């Protein structure tokens, strides 16, 4: 996605991430030369299994550090920041929705949301309760994840991702574990809530039906520079 943006919320330049492989050498997982995302934008990101979608999101979130290149998030060079600063930036700027939801099993719905807030601007119970109510979970505040249906868990995960009023929401195949109807509902809900909060959305999926609903869709394979395609695995460890 190479939109001509003056001041993008997210800017990726010449990004490379590779892993050592048992046979020796390294496997280049992510190679993105140029990718920008505007504030409040909704972008679908297509990628087949093993194409490095999750790795790219983890790089954007500062969970992983790149081998080369830069990622600038909210004018902060997240890829170059010290780890503690990356943690802070992630907690305050990003919301992350995982494919497997990643709710903490020992915490109630409300606590899962409050916990996410605690690492950012601080817990705001009223806001957390409001979000869960907005998700139709007002009767489930004190339920544990195991006591919820898959769709309800999904909604808690969305509430948690949006609790800190993030500027960017990363969604890693959040509908991948849902049936068709629930997937459609979840997608609509995520988009709606992101719009309400003015958050940009980078929605990763390999489901063409899901991606068809986004005004802009980027293909991870097409973001990859041609010279990096033939050379895999590249170099020696």
């Amino acid at each position: 996605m190479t939109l001509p943006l003056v001041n993008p919320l997210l800017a990726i330049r010449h990004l490379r991430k590779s892993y050592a492989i048992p046979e020796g050498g390294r496997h280049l997982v992510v190679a993105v030369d140029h990718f920008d995302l505007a504030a409040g934008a909704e972008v679908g990101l297509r990628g087949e299994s093993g194409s490095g979608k999750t790795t790219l999101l983890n790089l954007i979130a500062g969970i992983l550090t790149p081998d080369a290149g830069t990622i600038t998030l909210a004018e902060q060079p997240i890829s170059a920041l010290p780890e503690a600063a990356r943690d802070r930036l992630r907690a305050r700027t990003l919301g992350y929705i995982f494919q497997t939801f990643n709710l903490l099993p020992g915490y109630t719905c409300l606590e899962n949301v409050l916990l996410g807030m605690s690492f950012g601007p601080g817990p705001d119970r009223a806001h957390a309760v409001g979000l869960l109510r907005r998700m139709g979970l007002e009767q489930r505040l004190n339920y544990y994840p195991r006591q919820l249906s898959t769709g309800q868990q999904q909604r808690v995960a969305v509430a948690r991702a949006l609790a800190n009023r993030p500027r960017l929401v990363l969604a890693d195949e959040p509908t991948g574990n849902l049936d068709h109807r629930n997937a459609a509902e979840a997608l609509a809900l995520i988009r709606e809530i992101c719009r309400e909060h003015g958050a940009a959305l980078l929605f990763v999926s390999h489901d063409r039906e899901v991606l068809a609903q986004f005004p802009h869709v980027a293909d991870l394979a097409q973001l990859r520079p041609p010279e990096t395609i033939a050379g895999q695995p590249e170099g020696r460890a």
Partner: protein
Amino acid sequence: MILPLMIWRSLRQHALSTLVTAFSIALAGGLLMSVWAVRTQSQAVFTGVNAGFDAVLGARGSKLQLVLNAVFHLEASPGNVAWEDYLTIARHPNVALAIPLAVGDNFRGYRLAGTLPELFTRAEFAPGRHFTLRPGGEFFDPTRREAVVGSFAAQKLGLRRGDQFHPYHGLTFNEADQHAETYVVVGILEPSNTPADRVIWIPLEGLQSMSGHATNTVSELSAVLVKLKSAAGGFAMDQAYNKQGNRLTFAWPIGQVMVELFRKIGWFDEILALVADLVALVATASILAGIYNSMNERRREIAILRALGARRSIICGAILGEAAAIAAFGMAAAFGGYASIMVTAAGVIRAQTGVVLDPWQFNPVMVFAPVILIALGALAGVIPALKAYRTPVAEHLVPG
């Protein structure tokens, strides 16, 4: 705010492991505190017990045996003292009070001690405190077969004022050794929390002339309890009896003799303390093992927390806090174990010696043992915390 919630939730999630580990800490802490408290309290109490006297005069032999026999009413008498020796020391200018004591009989295992009424009327078993009787009782008439019973002995034997009994020969109870004489209980002593509570007191002459006792020792004593006018006098008498004389032993000061006893059995204390320390160390190590073994299942949770923005220091803090919390819960429960052990130990010591320990008395170990064990608990959390610190986030975000 967030850290206590994380610690509490983790403890709850690993409830069984938490309970088992906290229980082992409770046992270790209870044992450690009670061993320490029994040791310090019994040492303080036993070296402080002197029945209100400064010295014991007895047959040539062990000072410790003399004190144990005459003051604690344990052990056999090392030998006899002639009546003339009693008269000599009673008239000595350095002596304020001398009370003769004769032992050698029992009633159902509780020792009979023959003495003079002055033990009750003149001697103070503690500064300013004389023996007193329960209402209606009276001290014995030295010319009659009457007995005053210590409170503990009366309770255990079920003796009341007006009851009659036959003494038995020897210090250990043997039904075949019953004396023909009959004694009447004329008084029960109020508890003094001293070894005197375990004794049945009868007139000196009665014990000396009990049927079956050797006729040539009828005027002899087991020991003489001595109250001195001054400590300097004790030094002079120590020289006279122990250094210059060779017939009698003057055990003075009584407390010092008991200190020697504790010095002699110090190795036993040290072994007990060592065992308690080792138990505490093993219990602490169980915290490490408990948390460390659960690290694999925690990794995903740690990864999620990190992905939500939790810094490594928060994750480490939660693990260290959890380890310290397990130790703290264990130590809170340890006070229950401590109370049980202390009450039992105090009961046994009282039954065996008459000396009363106070299970509820404050001991500094009640502060420093919890502090040390909680600190050790937190220390045990360091290795799991380091493992948590190094957890690779991206690898563990996906269910394994």
